[in-house]
C-alpha cells in the first residue's frame, strides 16, 4: 500500500524529525483508524485514573486490613440490601474498599508495566541492531541466545526465573524483561536488516560515514515504527503477565492493591459464595486496559509499511 517517506536519501537529512512525523503516512493511517483511537482513549483514560489514584490515595491505608471497623465482603453500594453507599464496588475479605484499590491498581499496573516494557525495549533494540549490523558470529551468538529464551513458553520462563530470583514485584520486572527482550531483539533485527538492504546505506558508507552514525541516523529511526508497535502490543502482554504472576502468588506482596492479587483474593474468598464484586471489578479494569493497548497496537500495525509489518510479532 503506502510506503514510508524515506524514499529520497538526500531529502531525508534535510527534513526535521517533526516534519517527518507530521507528514508521515503512518500517523495519518493510524489516526483515521477508529478502533485505534478508541484504544488510545482507553489508555489515556487509565493513565489519568492511575495518576489520580496515586495522588489521592495512600498506599499504606489501602493495604491495611479494615476488619473491626468495616464489614468485610460488602456488596457494591448500589445493589442495596446490606450494602453501604460509600463502597460503590463493595469491600473485600479484609474490609478494604474495592473501588479505591481498583483505581490504585491502575497505577501499579502501569508503573511496573512501563518499566518492564521500557527495559525490554531498550535492551532488545540494542541487541537487535548489533545483531543485524555486525558480523555473522555476533549475529549468531546473540540470536541463538534469543532462540533459547524463546523456546520456553513465556509464562513458564517467567515462573522459572521467579524460582531463581524469588517473588516480589521488582523481581517479576526482571523476569519479564528477560522474557520479552528476545521478541524485541528479533523484531528490531528483522527491521534493521531490511533497512540495511537498502542501497543508500551502502552509498552512505562509501561516502565515509562511520558505523555509529549510520546506525543512529539511518538504521535506528527506521526501526522506530515496528518497535513502537511491538512495545504497544507488549505492554498489554506485560500487564496480563504481571497480574498472572501476582495471581499465582509470585508478584505482589500481600495487601498490595495489584489487580492480579485482588483477583486471586476474590477467587479464593468470594467466588463460591457468590460475592462477585471481589473478582469482577479488578478483572474488568484489567481487561479494558489491555484491550486498549491491543486496539492501539493493532491499528499501529495496520498502519505500518507492509515490509515492516511482517517483522512484528
Amino acid at each position, binding site marked *: 500500500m503506502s510506503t514510508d517517506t524515506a524514499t529520497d536519501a538526500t531529502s531525508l537529512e534535510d527534513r526535521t524529525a517533526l516534519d517527518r512525523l507530521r507528514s508521515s503516512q503512518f500517523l495519518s493511517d493510524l489516526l483515521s483508524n477508529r478502533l485505534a483511537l478508541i484504544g488510545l482513549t482507553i489508555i489515556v483514560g487509565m493513565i489519568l485514573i492511575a495518576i489520580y489514584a496515586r495522588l489521592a490515595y495512600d498506599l499504606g491505608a489501602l493495604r491495611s486490613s479494615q476488619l473491626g471497623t468495616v464489614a468485610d465482603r460488602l456488596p457494591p453500594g448500589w445493589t442495596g440490601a446490606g450494602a453501604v453507599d460509600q463502597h460503590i464496588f463493595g469491600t473485600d475479605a479484609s474490609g478494604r474498599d474495592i473501588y479505591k484499590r481498583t483505581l490504585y491498581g491502575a497505577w501499579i499496573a502501569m508503573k511496573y508495566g512501563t518499566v518492564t516494557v521500557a527495559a525490554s525495549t531498550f535492551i532488545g533494540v540494542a541487541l537487535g541492531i548489533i545483531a543485524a549490523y555486525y558480523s555473522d558470529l555476533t549475529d549468531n551468538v546473540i540470536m541463538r541466545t534469543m532462540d533459547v529464551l524463546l523456546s520456553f513458553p513465556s509464562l513458564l520462563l517467567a515462573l522459572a526465573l521467579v524460582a531463581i530470583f*524469588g*517473588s516480589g514485584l521488582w523481581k517479576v520486572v526482571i523476569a519479564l524483561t528477560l522474557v520479552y527482550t528476545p521478541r524485541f531483539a528479533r523484531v528490531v533485527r528483522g527491521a534493521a536488516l531490511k533497512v540495511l538492504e537498502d542501497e543508500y546505506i551502502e552509498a552512505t558508507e562509501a561516502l565515509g560515514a562511520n558505523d555509529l552514525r549510520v546506525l543512529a541516523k539511518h538504521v535506528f529511526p527506521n526501526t522506530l515504527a515496528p518497535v513502537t508497535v511491538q512495545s504497544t502490543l507488549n505492554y498489554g502482554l506485560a500487564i496480563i503477565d504481571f497480574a498472572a504472576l501476582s495471581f499465582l502468588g509470585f508478584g505482589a*506482596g500481600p495487601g498490595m492493591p495489584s489487580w492480579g492479587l485482588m483477583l486471586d483474593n476474590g*477467587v479464593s*474468598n468470594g467466588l*463460591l*459464595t457468590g460475592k462477585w464484586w471481589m473478582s469482577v471489578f479488578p478483572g474488568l479494569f484489567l481487561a479494558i486496559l489491555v484491550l486498549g493497548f491491543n486496539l492501539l497496537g493493532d491499528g499501529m500495525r495496520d498502519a505500518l509499511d507492509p515490509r515492516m509489518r511482517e517483522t512484528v510479532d
Partner: protein
Amino acid sequence: MSRDTVDRRTFLKSAGAATVVATSLAGCSSGDGDSGEDTTEASGDGGDGTETDETTEQDDDGNDLSGTLVYSRGDHPTNYDPQQTTSGEVAKVTNQVFDTLIDFVPGSGGQLTDGLATEWTLEETTATVTLKEGITFHNGEEVTGEDVRATVRRFIDEDYEYFLGNENRSGYSSVTFGDWVESIDVLSEYEVQFNLSQQYAPFVRNLAMFAAAVMSKAQIESVGATPDDQATIGTEPQGTGPFTFEELDNSNERILLSGYSDFWGEGPNVAQVIFKTIGANQTRAQDLINGDTHITDNLDAQSIQQVDGSGSASVVQKNGINVGYMAFNHARMEEFRDPRVKRAITMAVNRSAIVDDIYQGFATEADQPLPPDVLGHNDDLEPYPHDPDQAQSLLEEAGASDLSFELATFSNPRGYNPSPLQTANQIKSDLESIGVSVEINQFSTFSSYIDYTYGGRHDACLLGWYTDNADPDNFLYVLLHPGVDASELSADQQHIAWEDKGNASNVAAWVNKDYVELVDDGQTTYDEGSRRDIYLEASQIAHDDAPWMFIDYAELIRGIHQSVNADTYTVSSVGGPYLELVELN
C-alpha cells in the same frame, strides 16, 4: 510404572469395572455431587442409583461397616512410606494403614496407650517390648518381633540388606531411632529388645511417632534389596492398621482406603475412606458445607467463619501441642545476650493483641517453650506483661536504647502462625514506639527460610514447632539445647558461636549452663515425677532468660459435617486422625 499402583481390592467389585461408591451423605439422594453442583440436577455423576455398590459388612467386633468417609485436605503427597517423610500430611494417611508399638489416646493431649505392644519396659539402656499376639498385616501374616526388627533396620541400619538408603530415609531416621538404637534383639516370637546407646527417656514416646510404624518384613523382603526398590513401598504400603491402602490416584489427587475387617482394635466403622485434595481453603470449606466432604482441616480464619456460619457443618477445635515464637540470635547480636534486653523487647510487643486479632482467637498466649499439655509445663509462669514504659527503661538500663535489628520471617501461613507477615509488622510497629527499629526480611519459600535461619544469618526470626511425640525433650532439647556437652560451658555463658553449636534446630544459639544440665538430666531420667520437677525448673529458666519472645500456642481446628456422628470424632493434637472410630449418621 508410575501411574498407579497394585490394585488390591480384596473386598469390593470384580475386575474390569470402575468402582462407583455410594456415599451415605445426608440429604444427598443422587450420588456424591460436587462443589457447587446442585444435587437435583440430572447432570450429576455416578451413584444415581444404577451403580451403587454399597458394602455392608461386619468386622470381627460386629461393627457395621457401611458408608464412605471423605476427608478433604489441601495437599496430595504421592509417597506413603512412613520412613520416607516427615510430613504430617502423609502421617494422616499412614496412621490409618499402619500401627505403632505404642499409641496415643485419641484426643488426650499425648497420653500413651497400647499399640501393637501389650507391655513395655525401659530399664537403663534396654527397652523391651512385648507384642500382642494374633495381630495380622493386611496380607494376613501375623506380626512378630522379626517384623519390628526388620522395620527399624530398614530405617537406620546401613548394613541391612534392605536398608532404605540415605537418600530416601527421612529426617526422622536419626531422631527416632538412629541416634539411640545400637542394636535390636528378637528375644522370642513376640518379644523385642532395643539396646540403646544411652539412657534415653523419650524413647518410649518415639515408638509412638508415625515414623515408627511397624512394617511387614515379608513385604520389605519381597520388593527387592536396592533403595529404589524399597522406595516403591511408598505407593503400596501395607500395615496392620484399620484401613488397607487400596488406590493411589495421583492424576486426580485422591486416595482410597478400605476397611480392614480383621483389625485388632476398635473399629473401623466405615467401609471406605477417601482422602481427596482441594487446594483452596474456601473451596474446601464449601465442599464440607455442601456435604461432599465429611471432615477437613487446615482451614484459615475466613473459612472457619464460613463453616461456623453454615447450618450443615460445624467447627471443632482442641489446643494443639505446638509453640510459636520469635527467636533472638544470641550468636550474632551481643545485645541479645542480656536478658533485660530480651525481656524489654518482649514487653514492648502486645502479644495478646496478636493472638486475639491476628490469630483471631485461635491460639492462646505463650509464656514458655512447653505447651500446656506437655509434662513439665510450668503453670506458675505467666506471659510477660505488655508494658512499653518498663520496656523502655529496661533498655536504657541495659544501655541498648538505640537498638536496631533484622527480623526474618516466612510468608505463608503455618499452623502455629497463621499470619507471619502481619505478626512481623505488628512486632515492628510496637517496637518502633519505644525507639527500637526493626527491618523485616521476608522469605517467599519455607525451604529458603529454613536455610537462612539454620545457617544463623538472622538477627531474629519467627518460627514455631509442632510436637513429634508430646515429650518435653522434643521442645526443650530440640529447640533450645546447644548440642554440646555441659562441661564445655562456663557458668556465666549466655551464647554459643554458631559454628560450635551442635544442634541445627536451635536457631537462638542461647546457652545457660543450668538449663543445659537440667535438660540433659531430664533426658536420662526415667522417673516421671523427677522428670517433671526437672522440666518445671528448666521451663522457669527459659522463661526468665527469655531466649525467645514467646508468642502463642495454636489451636487445632477441624470442620465436620453433620452427617458425621460428632461423638465419634475427636481432634487429636498428636497421633491420629483416628478415623476407625468415626461413625456416619
